[in-house]
């Protein structure tokens, strides 16, 4: 029982990093990244690739996060596109990346994956992860309150306004994507050192869906709300495991879980787009009152 709770906690904290990364893109900047799972996968594959080629651990960590930055740069190259076009690109780039690592055994074992990644102990994960999340959270909160934060929210809400005050949409989106790539990849680095095994099967479109549920349920544009969203979804998935095993096969349980997530995404976006803990919008005094 306590083992299950610890597993859920560590998994939840890893998701929290990926969700904060998506919140920076979707919640704050309005970028709908259908390939969010790619940042997560890049972090894990940085570690796995280093392991597969006998390189020291730190190379994998640096490579994973650096890879996330690089992935962000690739998506940033398309940030001049309109919302919908960019969303299609994000899906295409992520699928491209995952297909390449799946079909190129040289990188990290191809479809078989990479085993034997050095495991980080539960106790070290239990202080390293909260520490990382705290640092990321402080950074994101400061960023959000800064002028940069005001501009990216304007990028989301009113692009004409941003351009009319002489700001470049492309530059702000690009910075956001690079940061989000690094944060999302951190989740992947932790994942690889937690599970010790990285294969392409772990990174499907359904992970992106799961992260979107967490962000939209919690409150896009509100980092604390997103963390609560992660906690709720993760608690739900863990508690599903306690269903009497006779009532559902493992495969059907996974299907049930996925259909609930998909359905909640539809319902949330139709009826409560701002999430359970909406972003607090600051009011500014205007001449018109």
């Amino acid at each position, binding site marked *: 029982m306590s083992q299950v709770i610890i597993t859920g906690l560590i998994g939840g904290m890893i998701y929290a990093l990926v969700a904060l990364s998506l919140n920076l893109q*979707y919640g704050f900047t*309005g970028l*709908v990244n*259908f390939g969010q799972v790619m940042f997560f996968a890049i972090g894990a594959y940085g570690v796995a690739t280093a392991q597969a080629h006998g390189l020291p651990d730190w190379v994998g960590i640096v490579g994973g996060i650096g890879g996330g930055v690089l992935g962000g740069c690739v998506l940033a*190259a*398309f940030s001049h*596109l*309109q*919302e*919908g*076009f960019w*969303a*299609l*690109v994000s*899906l*295409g*780039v992520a*699928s*491209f990346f995952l*297909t*390449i690592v799946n*079909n190129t055994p040289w990188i990290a074992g191809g479809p078989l994956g990479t085993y034997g990644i050095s495991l980080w102990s539960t106790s070290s994960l239990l202080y390293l992860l909260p520490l990382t999340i705290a640092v990321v959270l402080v950074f994101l909160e400061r960023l959000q309150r800064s002028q940069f934060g005001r501009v990216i929210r304007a990028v989301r809400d009113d692009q004409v306004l941003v351009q009319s005050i002489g700001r470049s949409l492309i530059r702000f989106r690009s910075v956001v994507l690079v940061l989000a790539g690094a944060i999302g990849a951190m989740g992947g680095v932790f994942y690889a050192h937690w599970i010790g095994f990285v294969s392409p099967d772990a990174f499907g*479109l*359904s992970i992106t*869906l799961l992260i*979107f549920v967490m962000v*939209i349920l919690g409150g896009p544009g509100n980092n604390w709300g997103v963390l609560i969203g992660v906690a709720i979804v993760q608690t739900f998935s863990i508690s599903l495991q306690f269903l009497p095993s006779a009532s559902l096969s493992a495969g*059907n349980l996974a*299907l*049930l879980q*996925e*259909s609930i*997530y*998909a*359905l909640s*995404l*539809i319902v949330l*976006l*139709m009826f409560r*787009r701002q999430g359970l803990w909406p972003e607090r919008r600051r009011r500014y005094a205007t001449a018109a009152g």
Partner: protein
Amino acid sequence: VSTLVSIVVSGLVLAAEMGLIVLSFSLTFRAIGFANFAQVQFVTIGAMVAVALSYVMPLWASVPIAMVAAGLVAVGFDLLIFRRIWGASVGSKMIISAGLSLFLLAVGQYFWGVNPRIYAHGVEGIVIAGQGIGYDKLVVIFIGVVVVLAFHLMMRKTVAGRLIRATADSNELLEARGISSRAVVTGVWFIAGSIAALGGALLGIETSVSPSLSTVILIPMFAGAVLGGLGSTMGAIVGTLVYSFGQALLLEVDFGSPFGTSWRFPLAYQSVLPFVILIAVLAIRPTGLFGSPENRA
């Protein structure tokens, strides 16, 4: 010669199947203004219904039933979801349609399982220039050509086609004439759903059918549509033709032969092609071959 015949035939077959799917996608895109992920589920529903019914009735009956069924499902989701989110942002609509698609995939896998199934009927063939070609391939190509021509005539020559084009261009103008654009959009969903289903039923003749078919065709559908120009139904056909023949050429030609060696495109990377096309077109020319700049994704 036999290589050439096989390239032409496999290119045409792929173009006929995917062309219908991309056509249906572009049609909904034009009417509702966003890239609908759930379109691939109408394809899959069509394929699954046609295959399942083929065990109890002939194909000429099971395929039309599958088309009507998928059309009705599409109309159902229009009434239930899509017409209620008219004012939402493009991104929100895309996420909703992706959620719907994954929901239907999970439901499909629950009821159908993961096993692929094939049509009950066997396939015979003829030989052209030393190359065996199944009748099924010729039938697929024939149906594809007929439907595309019929669709084109409908859009250009009939009142329904005029209404659809008018809705895509300006709702207000249509409403001013006392015509409900929502009713037209519902009609578009039905047509798009059934054309998608026909594409799926034809795909099922060439391959086997399972719920995961939707996952396989999602990006090729986007790639074909973007290549032709999002929202352009003519572009959908041309885009898919270019795409299909490009793929057939790339896979069948021995690129090493002019240099006295042998080098073929590695089959392992075949699945990367649609992603590359999608990314490359959006990088170089987001409006594709025939898209107009006003069309937004």
